[in-house]
């Protein structure tokens, strides 16, 4: 048993409450507490990803042992897939907190900010670690409610409108998820994911579980902003304060949306080809439609938000190809390649999209605008912002030697090897349109020589903001090393084995 597992949730919860209680008396405490909490979590997640090595650690909440081989308590499960996601959540969270040091001082009530931030991290860690359907719902609501509050942090007209939209759609998603959970419990009489898998594979009430699958897919699809459910994302992600946009776009939609879809559909349900095709089609749609909605945008953060939809489309499409191959039971090595592409692109997207949102925040911090038409010539006075955003733009458009190139390459190769030539062609075209869109961003924001009066005294942003941007830019470069076979074997292969072979996930939990 790994003693670190409950700490992943207890430490940020304690941080959130201590910030609110002690923050009143010690005005500068919130920053130090926030960074200590996130530093601890980031180190713990790195330790768990290094020590897990293909095994599974289980923590039984309250020490409830299984009765007659049937798990009855709440289980926290740490395997390679969740360790990977924990790393993404906590490292991006750490950099966002460092960035907030100076950025958030333009708002009042910083205590609330750090407290809600810690709560959001606790919720996401909980979703990723949970081995129980209802527990996923509870932690998902913790992270969702704190993110509703954080989107509205500026309490101006736009933020309030965005948060209302986000809350109504997020509330609907939660209800649909709860309904799906109820349906599963009705027939399977269990909420534990591993135990439910045993029941689902033994029984054959296919139409009934198809309904539950569709409900859960639409609920978590709404949380992940896959295309027919995407309406809230551009508003919410562009209205939030920039470090929060980076967290929402870079981490939240993956941890509470994509990760849960992966976990449930690979490890719990009997994969059927219809659902796999549906997921692939939804992913392809988000990929193509997202990028065409993005290209006409002049608000930087809205542009980036639409690109999040499109890049998540790559992840979902690639995972869908993997699902189709797994459900057919053919070409296991191509399925593994497609899943490696999906996971790799998920991590890369966390690095470059949070960096781009932090860049947008830096530009807004100095110029006070998000409209691309009102910028121009910022490269000369903001060298760090300009060079890091160049790195991120090249990474997201898939140019070597940045990480985005390698993950997109793997996805396209997997699509070709699985004989989905149309999907491969769409992926290439979307990548080119992405490049065009980001060249527009670079040109209008940084290189268009037009300088207006009053802009001469613009300076680079303060040191903490530069530090987190440069670190993320280094991640954009270094993550391309993960494509090398040696690193791939350590990082991705065990996680893929858990996804493709559900027995790997269930056996340690049920104690076979």
């Amino acid at each position, binding site marked *: 048993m790994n003693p670190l597992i409950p700490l992943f949730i207890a430490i940020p919860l304690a941080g959130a409450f201590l910030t609110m209680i002690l923050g009143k008396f010690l005005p500068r405490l919130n920053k130090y507490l926030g960074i200590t909490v996130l530093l601890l979590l980031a180190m713990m997640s790195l330790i768990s990803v290094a020590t897990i090595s293909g095994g599974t650690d289980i923590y039984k909440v309250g020490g409830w042992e299984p009765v007659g081989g049937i798990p009855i308590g709440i289980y926290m499960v740490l395997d390679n897939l969740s360790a990977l996601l924990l790393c993404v959540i906590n490292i991006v969270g750490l950099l966002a907190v460092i960035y907030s040091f100076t950025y958030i001082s333009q708002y009042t009530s910083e205590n609330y900010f750090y407290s809600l931030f810690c709560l959001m991290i606790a919720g996401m860690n909980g979703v990723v670690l949970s081995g129980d359907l*209802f527990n996923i719902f509870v932690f998902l609501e913790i992270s969702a*409610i704190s993110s*509703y509050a954080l989107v509205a942090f500026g309490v101006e007209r736009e933020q309030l409108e965005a948060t*209302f939209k986000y809350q109504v759609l997020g*509330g609907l998603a939660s209800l649909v998820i709860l309904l799906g959970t109820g349906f599963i*419990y009705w027939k399977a009489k269990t909420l534990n994911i591993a135990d439910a898998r045993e029941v689902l594979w033994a029984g054959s009430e296919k139409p009934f579980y198809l309904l539950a699958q569709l409900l859960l897919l639409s609920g978590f699809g709404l949380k992940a902003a896959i295309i027919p459910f995407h309406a809230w994302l551009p508003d919410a992600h562009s209205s939030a304060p920039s470090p929060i946009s980076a967290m929402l776009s870079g981490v939240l939609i993956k941890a509470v949306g994509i990760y849960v879809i992966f976990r449930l559909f690979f490890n719990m349900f009997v994969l059927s080809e219809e659902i796999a095709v549906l997921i692939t089609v939804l992913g392809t749609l988000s990929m193509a439609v997202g990028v065409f909605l993005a290209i006409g945008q002049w608000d930087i953060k809205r542009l980036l938000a639409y690109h999040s939809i499109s890049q998540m489309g790559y992840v979902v499409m690639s995972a869908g190809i993997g699902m189709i191959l797994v459900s057919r039971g053919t070409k296991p090595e191509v399925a593994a390649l497609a899943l490696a592409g999906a996971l790799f692109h998920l991590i890369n997207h966390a690095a470059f999209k949070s960096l781009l949102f932090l860049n947008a925040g830096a530009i807004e911090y100095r110029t006070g605008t998000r409209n691309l038409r009102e910028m121009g010539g910022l490269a000369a006075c903001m060298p760090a912002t300009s060079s890091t955003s160049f790195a991120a733009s090249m990474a997201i458009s898939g140019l070597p030697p940045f990480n985005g190139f390698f993950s997109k390459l793997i996805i396209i190769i997997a699509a070709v090897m699985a004989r989905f030539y149309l999907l491969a062609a769409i992926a290439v075209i979307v990548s080119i349109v992405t490049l065009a869109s980001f060249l527009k961003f670079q040109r209008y924001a940084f290189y268009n020589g037009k300088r207006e009066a009053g802009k001469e005294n613009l300076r680079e942003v303060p040191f903490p903001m530069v530090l987190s941007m440069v670190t993320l830019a280094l991640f954009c470069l270094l993550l391309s090393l993960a494509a090398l076979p040696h690193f791939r074997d350590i990082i991705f292969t065990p996680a893929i084995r858990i996804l493709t072979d559900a027995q790997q996930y269930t056996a340690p939990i049920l104690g076979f």
Partner: protein
Amino acid sequence: MIVYLLCFVLFLTGLYGVITRRNLVKIVISLSIMEFSLFLFLALIGYVEGGTVPIVDPADTGAVYVDPLPQAMVLTAIVIGLATTAMLMAVIIRVYRKYKTMDIREIKNLRG
């Protein structure tokens, strides 16, 4: 079976309200109706025909108990629903102060 259908009708009533109402408060009320229809559904799936309160009495060996787990789920979900509704209401008060209206058609700064 009829109980489940009525429960579903209540769910759809709430959904209809969320889609068609123009007033922000009425949207939140419709969301709450959907939520409560779900709580009812969860309590129903735990019901066993002729079952009693799930407090085990060792003397009575023939007793049938209803499933307590969905009831615990409903309690948790009620608390979560309270938090969501409170948060929505707080946002509505702020929206009213900024826009001076509760009509969703007039609150449309964000487009595209």
